[in-house]
């Protein structure tokens, strides 16, 4: 019932905005904004139009396109974008006009700016809440582990985003689990975004144009995960000149090539990265070490072809692979593949369309090499995805609507033993699911003060055959089993996801915002280890697993001062989560056809306060982010059925980031992070079983690990500007400069030389780690 009423509320508004605009005599100015040097489209550039008959402003969409509709007259158009020179043009608007603008990069001394969107007052005016746009240039200057600049590690410095652990790319947004983040690379889902068990991410910063993180108030074009969307877009490739850039680091090297294929029609970008820890291992004389492997590599590639101003296609792809092996024991390989074909069509100056055909796959294999205990186990999840997205720009409305259909196949586990193996061959049935959705949203400029962004997303998930589907009793034994033929529906779930946000501008500098959104999730990761593992299991919603649902409300206050040089925001949120997943005691998740019998279902709640202060311009830039939060879960059968803190419940979370540009050549930066320790379960008592000390536990996750605090420093030295195209730079980094031993895990054991006592032992991963990287470009 509650969906229905929401829908009826939305309906008249949507009609209103479609017809309202057409009633008056107005003209549209539209076009694409590009970088003059590379031809890359600029996403989120600000376009303003001002004249005696009216004024309007907008930001370019994901393909650099903008459209503004105003009354006939003379106007000044101004286009601005971070670290680019302002462009202003006078136009006489007496018919629908096309205006493409190429922008030149600003002079080098313009300091680093920490937010990519240029519309300087965007922070205050936009109704969008809980969104963070990362400036990829910022990454060049921030200190990171082993000097590998990384989108996923940088977003962990933002309010409301918690790190998955030391050196880990996993992250938790506003109390969500790490599998509740939708991670997109050119619209393709990246299921496992980590390399080397989470110490590095799959995103090679060289290949990336923008990365936007939505942690609340999610626009309705996104769906399928509860807590956040990280939307990463690859560079299109330089359409003006051939260029090459790369870097040599301690752990890995990178190389990127890009250039025009057909002048002003087509360009390409290809970017590769490989680690060489194993090459170092090979150099070690010890033959036992020599036989081991430990590496990853990845490849990003993109081509585009512009038929004319109205039709462009893009083809992009990612391929990454990790290989780990211990001589004569085992190997473990895993990787993602994605491919995206997109077609942009501009129907008219107001209607922009994008059609995407997307493929993505994540797979892993584990091989045991023992002569008796040997097998090769493989597993994969594969999606085909078709998406149609329209954007309609009218006077006071930006309408976005479309539909999406995704077909999932999960091959949970195939076990192929060798001929003399003690293992039996095993092939667990594939699972198939179809996820379809339709959405509509409207960004409505109600008045100078009030902006609304509201919409609705429908999500329909159906699990279909072929296959045998079981239900389980409370012991985890099969209660009923039913076989379905190919294409027959096993289970359907339909959900309505209303989304709403509003901003009210008190004056030019201050605004308040509010949002509500509902999200649902039908793909779930099963993992009972603390960190992300390549062998995490994927399951779909089914006859046993209901879709996860989250409702979030958020309020915020936003303030900009000193000509938008400083930004402040306070956001507070409350989130309810249903149908959350945990594991029974002794759960067997791997190679288990009845894995759904091993699960417990419960609910969760998360609430918090996020403070954010950012200095955007000047020699010294940076930000301070602080989050005060609580994240709890409740499951029948755990902790006596009462709420307990989730592992990632960290009360205080602070990040201070500073970047100081000393002169044209030297930039220094540092970040300090502090967070409360993870919620963990410490023993309350102990006893002896089988001659060994065992521990007695009472409250789940009622104790705290010691806090984590870390200072990282880096310095970047730009090469001398010799007037030639070749440019190089050095980056020096110190990770954990204070050499603090941050807790990774805590174990309880008998004191080694005194079995009458027990002790708690803390393991820390990283001490101080220096790094150096040489980057070049020409």
């Amino acid at each position, binding site marked *: 019932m509650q969906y229905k009423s929401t829908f009826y509320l939305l309906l008249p508004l949507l009609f209103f905005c479609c017809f309202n605009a057409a009633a008056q005599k107005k003209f549209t100015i539209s076009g694409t904004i590009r970088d003059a040097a590379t031809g890359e489209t600029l996403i989120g550039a600000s376009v303003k139009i001002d004249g005696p008959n009216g004024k309007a402003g907008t930001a370019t969409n994901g393909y650099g396109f903008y459209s503004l509709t105003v009354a006939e007259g003379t106007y000044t158009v101004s286009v601005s974008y971070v670290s680019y020179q302002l462009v202003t043009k006078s136009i006489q608007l007496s018919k629908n006009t096309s205006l493409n603008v190429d922008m030149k990069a600003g002079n080098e001394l313009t300091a680093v700016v920490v937010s990519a969107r240029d519309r300087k007052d965007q922070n205050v005016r936009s109704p969008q809440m809980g969104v963070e746009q990362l400036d990829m240039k910022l990454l060049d200057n921030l200190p990171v582990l082993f000097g590998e600049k990384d989108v996923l590690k940088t977003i962990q410095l933002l309010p409301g985003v918690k790190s998955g*652990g030391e050196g880990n790319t996993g992250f938790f947004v506003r109390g969500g689990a790490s599998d509740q983040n939708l991670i997109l690379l050119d619209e393709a889902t990246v299921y496992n975004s980590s390399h080397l068990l989470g110490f590095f991410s799959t995103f090679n910063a060289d290949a990336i144009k923008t990365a936007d993180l939505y942690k609340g108030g999610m626009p309705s074009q996104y769906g399928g995960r509860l807590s956040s969307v990280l939307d990463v877009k690859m560079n299109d490739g330089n359409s003006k000149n051939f260029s090459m850039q790369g870097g040599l680091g301690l752990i890995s090297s990178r190389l990127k090539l890009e250039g025009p294929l057909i002048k002003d029609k087509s360009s390409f970008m290809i970017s590769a990265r490989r680690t060489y820890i194993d090459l170092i291992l090979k150099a070690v004389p010890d033959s*036992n070490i020599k036989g*081991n492997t*430990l590496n990853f590599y990845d490849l990003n590639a993109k081509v585009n072809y512009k038929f004319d101003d109205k039709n462009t296609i893009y083809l992009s792809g990612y391929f990454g692979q990790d290989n*780990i092996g*211990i001589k004569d024991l*085992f190997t*473990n390989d895993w990787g993602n593949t994605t491919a995206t074909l997109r077609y942009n069509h501009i129907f008219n100056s107001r209607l922009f369309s994008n059609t995407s055909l997307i493929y993505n796959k994540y797979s892993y294999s584990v091989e045991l090499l*023992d002569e*008796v205990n040997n097998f090769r*186990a493989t597993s994969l999840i594969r999606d085909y995805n078709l998406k149609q997205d329209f954007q309609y720009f009218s006077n006071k409305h930006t309408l976005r609507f479309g539909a999406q259909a995704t077909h999932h196949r999960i091959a949970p586990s195939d076990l192929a033993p060798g001929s003399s*193996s*003690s*293992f*039996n061959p*095993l092939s667990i049935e594939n699972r198939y699911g179809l996820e379809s959705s339709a959405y509509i949203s409207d960004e409505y400029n109600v008045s100078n003060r009030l902006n609304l962004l509201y919409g609705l997303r429908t999500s329909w998930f159906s699990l279909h055959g072929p296959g045998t589907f079981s239900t389980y009793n409370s012991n985890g034994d099969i209660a009923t089993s039913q076989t379905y033929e190919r294409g027959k529906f096993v289970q359907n779930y339909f959900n309505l996801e209303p989304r709403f946000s509003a901003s009210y501008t008190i004056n030019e500098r201050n605004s308040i915002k509010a949002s509500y959104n509902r999200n649902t999730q039908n793909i779930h990761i099963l993992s*009972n*280890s*603390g960190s992300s593992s390549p062998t995490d299991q994927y399951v779909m919603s089914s006859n046993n697993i209901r879709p996860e649902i989250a409702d979030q409300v958020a309020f915020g206050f936003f303030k900009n001062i000193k000509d938008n040089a400083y930004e402040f925001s306070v956001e507070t949120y409350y989130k309810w989560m249903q149908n959350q997943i945990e594991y029974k005691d*002794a759960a*067997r998740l*791997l*190679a288990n056809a009845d894995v759904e019998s091993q699960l417990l279902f419960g609910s969760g709640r998360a609430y918090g306060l996020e403070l954010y202060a950012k200095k955007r311009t000047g020699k010294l830039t940076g930000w301070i982010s602080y989050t005060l939060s609580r994240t709890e879960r409740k499951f029948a059968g*755990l902790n006596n059925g009462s709420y307990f803190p989730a*592992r990632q419940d960290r009360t205080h979370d602070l990040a201070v980031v500073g970047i100081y540009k000393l002169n044209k050549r030297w930039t220094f930066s540092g970040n300090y992070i502090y967070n409360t*320790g*993870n919620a963990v*379960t*410490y*023993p*309350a*008592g*102990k*006893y*002896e*079983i*089988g*001659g*060994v*000390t*065992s*521990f*007695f*536990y*009472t409250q*789940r996750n009622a*104790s705290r*690990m010691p806090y984590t605090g870390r200072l990282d420093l880096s310095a970047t030295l730009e090469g001398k500007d010799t007037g030639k195209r070749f440019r190089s730079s050095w980056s020096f980094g110190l990770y954990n400069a204070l050499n603090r*031993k941050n*807790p990774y*895990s*805590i*174990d309880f054991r008998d004191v*080694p030389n005194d*079995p009458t006592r*027990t002790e708690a*032992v803390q*393991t*820390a991963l990283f*001490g101080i780690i220096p790094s150096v990287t040489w980057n070049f470009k020409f």
Partner: protein
Amino acid sequence: MKSLFYLVVFFIIAVAVTSCEKVIDVKTDTSPSQLVIEGNITNIRQQQTIKISRTVDYTNPNVYPAVRGALVNVKDNAGNSWNFTEETPGVYRSVSILGRPGRTYTLTVNVENNVYTASSTMPAQVRADSITLTDITFGSRTRKLVAVHYTDPKGVPNYYRYILRINGRQTNRVYVYDDRLKDGNLSKNELYPDTEDDDERNELKRGDVAEVEMQNIDKNIFNYWFTLRQQSRGGPGGGTTPGNPPSNINNGALGYFSAHTHQAISITVP
């Protein structure tokens, strides 16, 4: 495969960074003392033992108060009944009972008029053919590994537990295996040492005697030990959230009651 994952993590840590351990002070809760029952019925002519003790607070020394004066009885499903007598404080024994595979045993313990019961079925015995030693190398460190060889009977679920003793001294690690993926095959169970175990006495050297006690246990007991093993590594923050392993004893007692087979087999390191 989970332990494999830990091996991988261990490997990465060993190669890429210098991990470091230190003993820290932690603040733990206290709780009222809990009753702990550990009962074992085996198929060999040894004294069958039920131990009853209590938990102590985490901060106390490892001295566990014995529970004296309990009434302990074991019945089987063939109509036999044995009363156990307290031989030493908290240790209850019966000389006349001898466990038989296939029989279900029910334990009743009465402590100060609180009654605790549990039952366990002794599985059919699977005998080890042999135990062998293999070398295993992590990084630059080579250790000897004890492996147990046997043929798993087809068509029935089997659960195995091993106790490893080196020169008569029991090692701390929990070893449990099942035949979920290996039903009916010639099998080999490797008793991996704890990768973080720096206790030199657990390292096998020439002349050492490794003795393996092989047990066939029932499913509940397997779950008990399996849960305990999942928690014993990685600890809070690293691995599975620890909890009390699922006991087959009712009324809130900790511990277990297991009817299992027994076979001891040993090897001397050459």
